[in-house]
């Protein structure tokens, strides 16, 4: 039962992990390339969620300093890291989509299994 209460306390982390596994599953099993790219984004986003959740404190505010006020701020570091992470994910997505566009031009399909079929026929 200790484990169960632990999970309920850390439900944010648990959701992130489940999202990660869903993303990984979709990425590795679906044949559609667009779905693979979307799954890649789900996977990255789940880790961003995990990171941002690490930085959170109950009752804290966004780290924009107001002079003189006595406020608790959230940890700025994970948020800052994830800004970089989001840009990285965007870049990878853009490149992956350009590859899909080109592959679609050659084979008229986005499905990996169909492409393998077409290639084996040649």
């Amino acid at each position, binding site marked *: 039962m200790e484990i169960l209460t632990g999970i309920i306390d850390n439900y944010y982390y648990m959701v992130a992990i489940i999202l990660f596994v869903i993303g990984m599953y979709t990425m590795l099993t679906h044949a559609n390339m667009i779905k693979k790219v979307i799954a890649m984004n789900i996977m990255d986003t789940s880790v961003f969620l995990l990171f941002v959740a690490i930085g959170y404190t109950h009752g804290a505010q966004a780290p*924009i300093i107001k*002079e003189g006020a006595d406020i608790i701020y959230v940890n700025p570091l994970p948020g800052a890291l994830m*800004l970089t992470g989001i840009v990285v994910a965007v870049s990878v997505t*853009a490149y992956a*989509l350009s590859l899909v*566009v*080109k592959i679609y*031009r050659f084979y008229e399909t986005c499905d990996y299994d169909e492409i393998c079929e077409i290639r084996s026929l040649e």
Partner: protein
Amino acid sequence: MPLSRRTERRGGGTAIEDQIVRITSRLVAPFIQVYGIYVILHGHLSPGGSFSGGAIFGASLVLVALSFNLETGAKQISHQLASGLESGGAFGFILTGLIAIAIGGNFLANRAAGFPMGQAGELFSAGAILIITVFVGIKVASTIVTLFYTIIEGEE
């Protein structure tokens, strides 16, 4: 004249040319651009910053290109200018870091290298942070536009 019609675009795709969309986007685009510039310049004071502001600015150009046709959109920012801005933005970032070395700090140092810090909370403050934010903002905006045009052209 019909209010909305589908026209043939280069390469066989179609674009919706709609009066309402056109006029609205033309009206809204400058405001989006001003907002983008605001977000970039106030990166060290309020939420947002180089990436968000650059993305907003780039999105306004993409909006214009989508609601008109590609040629009108492409007139607003040419390929050469976009790639020049990209290289320039990224190189300006490195240059700021190298200037920090030249005036006696480590690479990418800010206060330690002696950039003017100003009064915290004002627009022109925070030394190298403002400079780098502007450079990265320019770079991100041109990146969004270039990505859009390049992938569109690849589809033809």
